């Protein structure tokens, strides 16, 4: 055979191979492109949803009402779906089409979680069962301790618990903060050897009521005998992230979320033929986010991106809301310079006058709508504490990075005025927070 013939045969063989490889590479590139596009789109959608949640809870004075809270969460979901639909080039008026790819959204709240997921419903018009997304009932972070006596404990993100069941022959239901009794007293005037500001009634009441509740929890309810994690003492301080109580509480929270999510996603996956939905394994870092703050977890699965189908999730925290007092996000105003607020660890020489601390949400702008007798509504904006964040605290350049807030306020070298301001603020803010557990 001549060289020319061999050349033609070679080219005829190699040309389809080149075309196939080219197609394979371009599809691979498309897969990567869409994967990164959906990753960033999911994150942006989550940011929008969290922002909507924060703004709506801050600006709505009834946000602690359970029904209002559901409306606020639905609005957040709406913001999330619209943004995600935009990423997927679905027009906003058809944004609900994106729900097909959302097997579940979880809102981790202060003492439980809401889940937005599909449920099977009977459609009378078509006479068929179909799936429709909806906000499910609130699930508490609860655990049954004694089946015979019906003893149930409900946990929260911090040391607040609710206990109900039969104690000493009578049914009782109590809720309150668990505290290390050796650190405070029945009058609530000190904590960890630091005096609490006596003019702050809410702070004093917090420590007083926490002492009383913990006393009941340990001595009347005898909870310590039911589980070693409930033996609250100096080596098992509920404020400590590494304490047995906190570890146990987190296991319960994780188990609860995983079980509810798994069963919902599996049921949806079994009954739909379009996608095989699976619950991804959340990383330890993501679980830490869920344990430590109000959070939102969204799953986005099944969108075709070339060779494969997209399977992603995102966990995002809300740090600026009225739901939860995060001990790491309490900021302080100096009476001599009330226009700037600081982290307690800020070494900037601002500590001239008296320090007063508030939760971070207190520094946000709030929308106030007033309607006069003629029915005219006027919108104005106001600040609970009109101060700006300290530049050094925001960029973190001057903060003592070797110590967390928890370590700093418990360190023997920390100024007692810092400690007093911190524990007073923490007590007051916690005392003034409305909880669903006692509604």
């Amino acid at each position, binding site marked *: 055979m*001549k060289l*020319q*013939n061999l*050349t*033609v045969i070679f*080219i*005829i063989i*190699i*040309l389809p191979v*080149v075309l196939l490889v*080219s197609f394979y590479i*371009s599809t691979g*590139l498309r897969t990567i*492109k869409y994967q990164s*596009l959906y990753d*960033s789109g999911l994150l*942006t959608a989550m*940011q*929008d*949803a969290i*922002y*909507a949640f924060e*703004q*709506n809870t801050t600006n*709505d004075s009834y946000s602690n009402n359970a029904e209002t809270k559901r*409306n*606020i969460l*639905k*609005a*957040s*979901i*709406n*913001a*999330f779906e*619209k*943004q995600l639909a*935009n*990423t997927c*080039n679905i027009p*906003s008026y058809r944004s609900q089409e994106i729900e097909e790819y959302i097997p579940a959204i979880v809102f981790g709240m202060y003492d439980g979680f809401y889940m937005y997921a599909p449920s099977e419903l009977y459609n009378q018009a078509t006479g068929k069962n179909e799936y429709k997304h909806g906000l499910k009932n609130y699930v508490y972070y609860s655990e049954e301790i004694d089946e015979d006596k019906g003893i149930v404990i409900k946990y929260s993100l911090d040391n607040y618990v609710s206990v109900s069941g039969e104690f000493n022959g009578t049914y009782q239901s109590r809720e309150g903060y668990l505290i290390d009794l050796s650190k405070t007293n029945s009058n609530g005037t000190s904590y960890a050897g630091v005096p609490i500001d006596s003019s702050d009634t809410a702070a004093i009441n917090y420590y007083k009521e926490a002492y009383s509740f913990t006393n009941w929890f340990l001595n009347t309810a005898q909870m310590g005998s039911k589980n070693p994690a409930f033996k609250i003492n100096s080596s098992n301080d509920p404020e400590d992230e590494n304490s047995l109580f906190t570890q146990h509480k987190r296991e319960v929270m994780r188990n609860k979320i995983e079980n509810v999510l798994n069963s919902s996603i599996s049921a949806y996956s079994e009954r739909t033929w379009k996608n095989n939905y699976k619950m991804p394994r959340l990383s330890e870092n993501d679980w830490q986010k869920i344990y430590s703050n109000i959070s939102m977890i969204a799953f986005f699965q099944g969108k075709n991106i070339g060779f494969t189908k997209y399977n992603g999730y995102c966990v995002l925290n809300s740090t600026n809301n009225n739901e939860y007092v995060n001990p790491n996000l309490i900021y302080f105003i100096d009476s001599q310079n009330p226009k700037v607020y600081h982290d307690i660890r800020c070494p900037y020489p601002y500590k001239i006058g008296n320090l007063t601390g508030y939760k971070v949400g207190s520094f946000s*702008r709030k929308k106030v*709508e007033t309607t006069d007798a003629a029915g*005219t*509504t*006027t*919108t104005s904006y106001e600040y609970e504490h009109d101060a700006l964040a300290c530049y050094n605290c925001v960029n973190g350049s001057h903060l003592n990075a070797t110590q967390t807030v928890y370590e700093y306020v418990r360190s023997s070298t920390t100024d007692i005025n810092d400690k007093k301001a911190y524990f007073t603020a923490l007590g007051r803010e916690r005392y003034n927070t409305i909880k669903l557990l006692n509604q």
Partner: protein
Amino acid sequence: MGDSLITIVAIFLAATLMFVFPLVAISEMNDNEAQSMLQAYTTEYVDSIRSAGKITKEMDDAFVQRIATIGGNSYEREYEVQIPDTNPGKKSENQQIGDTTYYGEYTSQVEGQLKSGNGVYTLIPGAKVTVTVRNTNTTISQMLKSVLYGITGNQAYVISAQASGMVTAIGY
């Protein structure tokens, strides 16, 4: 005669394989790179608008100049701003961000604001801003594809990027 024909066919195929396909591949790669850069720049720009709560003439000019350097192409950018309608005369009660009635303003209105007065288009928290960028010229890859696949008429955009998000600050 037979040998000459097969030689011509071989030369033609070899030329296609050695020159045309690599050229198409390189030009497509160039478009892909431009696409990635355009998406990154657009996302960055939208993020800056969201956190600033406004669009200024300086921001817009800087963005237009920045994207003009990508891949030797020319681009047009379009704005779409969805503003929450909080007109008390309509329906303001119980409206939550995310569940609000929105009205839209588009490129011409944004540009009008940027060209007049202080050159600032102010946004409010909860508004949704979308920036779309597309190429306006015909890229080499488009030209080659037109020749290879015999496409005539209007060209589709091959490089386009879109980014959007909710405004989180007030730009006063």
